[in-house]
């Protein structure tokens, strides 16, 4: 068993704009089960961060508990990290984000971590439009505790032990739409062509960007009858659009057929370029997204791709009208302007 990955890399790897090769965005070798979908998502995160030329110190990765929540160890070794308590990643991220608005926050969670114990925290982070990327590595089970059905397991999905799930599933993407999340996407660990640009767009989005990524658990939920297995997902996947993310000041290179294509400009000047596959769907129309989601589900299909985006998103700092300077950088003088200023404030209440 290898405990370390060779330090070699392909001799012809290109450096990105900030001088790093892809290998520089990797973490230590994964200890997850071989073939776990979560590792592919880690791979997509590495790829996305390399492609957007992220400076690793500008990102903080936060997680809860679960196999999924272990993954931050396996990517971005040079970024900040906080592995918190089961289901508590959103509150830790909220605190961190409030203290330092300058970092990019990447929250990684599991379906158990989010849809069960962390549900309360999850919905409030959405409600507040906390500026973060929230990835759920969704395998329909509690992988770390040996594969019990989670709250996202589909009704009737067969477990490895052979029993049908008697409960209705929580559709986290649907819930996020219901709660007015400003960016909602769904993808599949086995489809990096879609997932990588989606992660990049989510990072550019100023507000709560939610990604529900189906990620098969090879060990406990990849059996026949499971609706989160590699083969089931591959057979039932459909997509809202062919999707690309174009960073600010870069040329759009993909030509989409007339009429089907749309271009969405994000707050920072970057663009989402997409070619619609789903009829009656408009990425900026929440109702159309909800309808599409239900229509797909009714046909037993899994709808992936960008589902919804609000390009006028105002994040929690905007709502609270905090200062531009990160709170943790405010000096004693700025925070305690002195007794004279206090007098003035008090006077205003008199």
């Amino acid at each position: 068993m290898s405990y370390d990955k060779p330090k070699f890399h392909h001799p012809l790897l290109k450096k990105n704009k900030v001088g790093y090769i892809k290998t520089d965005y990797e973490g230590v070798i994964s200890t997850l089960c071989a073939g776990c979908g979560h590792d592919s998502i880690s791979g997509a995160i590495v790829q996305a961060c390399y492609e957007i030329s992220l400076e690793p110190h500008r990102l903080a990765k936060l997680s809860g508990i679960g196999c999924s929540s272990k993954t931050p160890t396996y990517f971005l070794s040079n970024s900040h990290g906080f592995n918190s308590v089961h289901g508590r990643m959103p509150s830790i991220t909220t605190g961190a984000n409030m203290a330092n608005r300058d970092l990019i926050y990447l929250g990684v969670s599991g379906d158990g971590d989010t849809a069960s114990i962390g549900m309360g925290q999850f919905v409030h982070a959405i409600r507040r439009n906390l500026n973060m990327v929230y990835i759920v590595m969704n395998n329909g089970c509690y992988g770390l505790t040996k594969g019990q059905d989670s709250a996202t397991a589909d009704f009737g999905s067969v477990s490895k032990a052979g029993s049908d799930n008697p409960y209705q599933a929580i559709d986290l993407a649907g819930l996020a739409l219901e709660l007015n999340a400003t960016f909602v996407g769904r993808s599949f660990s086995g489809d990096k062509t879609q997932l990588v640009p989606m992660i990049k767009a989510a990072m550019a989005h100023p507000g709560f960007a939610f990604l529900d990524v189906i990620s098969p658990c090879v060990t406990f939920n990849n059996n026949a009858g499971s609706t989160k297995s590699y083969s089931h997902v591959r057979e039932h996947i459909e997509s809202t659009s062919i999707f690309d993310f174009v960073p600010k000041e870069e040329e759009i290179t993909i030509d989409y057929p007339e009429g089907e294509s749309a271009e969405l400009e994000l707050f920072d000047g970057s663009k989402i370029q997409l070619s619609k596959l789903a009829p009656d769907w408009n990425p900026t129309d929440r109702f159309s997204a909800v309808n599409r989601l239900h229509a797909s589900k009714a046909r037993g299909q899994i709808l992936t791709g960008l589902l919804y985006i609000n390009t006028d998103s105002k994040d929690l700092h905007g709502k609270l009208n905090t200062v531009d300077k990160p709170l943790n950088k405010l000096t004693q003088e700025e925070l305690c302007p002195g007794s004279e200023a206090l007098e003035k404030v008090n006077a205003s209440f008199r």
Partner: protein
Amino acid sequence: MKPTNINDPEYFHKVVDCQYACPAHTPVPEYIRLIAAQRYTEAYMINWESNVFPGVLGRTCDRPCEPACRRGRVEEEPVAICRLKRVAADNKGEVKSLMPQGPFTPNGKKIALIGGGPASLTVARDLAPLGYELHLYDEWKKGGGMMRTQIPAFRLPEEVLDEEVNYILDMGIHTHFNTYVESMKEILEKDYDVVFVGTGAPRGRALKLPGYEEAKANIQIGIEYLANVAFEHTDKIGEKVIVLGGGNTAMDCCRTSKRLGGKDVTVVVRSPRKDMKASPWEIEDAEREDIVILNNMPPKEFVVENGKLKGVIFGKVRAEYAENGKRTLIPTGEPDVFIEADDVIIAIGQDNAFPWIERDLGIEFGKWDIPVLDKTTFQSTLPKVFFGGDAAFGPENVITAVAHGHHAAISIDLFCNEKNLMDRPPPMTNLVSQKMGIHEWTYDNYIAIDPRYQVPHEDKSISLKDRKIEVELGFDEKVGFKEAQRCLNCDVQTVFETNLCIECDACTDVCPTDCITFTKNGEEEELRTRLNAPALNLSQDLYISDVLPTKRVMIKDEDVCLHCGLCAERCPTAAWDMKKYLYNTPKTYNFNETGSCCK
């Protein structure tokens, strides 16, 4: 592209870059692992089976394997394959009992081997155990050919050569030393069933510039000089020596001169340094001994004073290359240069020469007096005469001569059994999983960045005093182990099973060198442009799977795969497995049966 046929014995053979590049296809990684395990005797025997002279080659091989070594593609320098061979030879135990044991039951066939170099000796070794009566002729008093007459003792101690030559001669070879064969006709008139010609390329080229005749007494041909030194007919040289030529012979001549009294030894080469034929390490070794190498200076005239050589006049040129790479040396117009010399040694090349083969025997000769041969069988136009080594296609090196010897021995055996010479035995191959348990392999698969270790040299002040003192000291066991650990185990193959793959991407993600891509199939040229990492090394194959359920194929660029096994460790379904591929070129007899190979 079509799915790769991994049952083609050459596919995985090619992945073992060093073995593939070795003319005798020595299973390099196999013996390097044995060295790391301190199993030197077995490592030696693996070598002996393939290349016959591990001790000699561990010091002197031209090492075509090293430029091919995969380590050289991911790190600065290749594994010191050649010097590891020496570690096996230096530290081995008793080996003779592991070699085929005579006396062998005679099969009634008699073979003449003309020339006692590595080519003839290899034929002798391969045929002796089959009961052939072998008669070896050489003009010198001992066997070994140019390994003895040309390669200086400070690079190859005589004991090492004697030992390995004797392993063969002791198999019951009838030697006819001190016998220069004057006439092929006479040999053919004897009752030999087959004659093998392994006489090398024995004629050194001369350079008859103005002044040559008058200065002749102090001008020598390089290979004649070296042979005279080897047999102690020459034991000194003037203080100022000029060596003309830029090949390995020139390097041996200048270094030998340093040891025979030469003080100012200068090698003058007409071409630029980068075009010099000498191996880079030979040039380095010469310069380390304070030998000056001058480039871009063609000789023009031998200067004679009072009937004696005074020096040489050189012109000055620069090289220009046409688009097709053809070089022309253009005079720069700078004044000529005179260099003083007591002796000049001309080392500008060798030619084949067969003055002793009559031209009416049915043995045809082509351009440059090179025999017309079948490239596979080494048979000449006279069916019972075969050629090999430098005599076959012109001067090469020891390992090529050995490889020729193996091929010729197979041909001779087929010929004597009245079989079709083209019905050649296939290579012996074996592909075995190295899995010992979950994620455990029989080989050490961790790959660390680890620059090449340097071989220690004897102190100059000592080695220059005596031409018999070996310069290179070889790796000791500890450093040998470290160098052995640099080997990437290229013979442990990544073998892909399409119907097991669930396309989870785990292998793609974990591969440190981005070798693996899952994508739509296409034509090779176009495919190479859309893999996860650039696949620009066209000499390395793409390994293509059958079509997967998603209609994609798995494509692995073999180029910079580290054989680290991580793909196989991370694969949930064992669609990847690490399997050791043993490839042995066919020989005339099975070494395992004769008990020679390691158990």
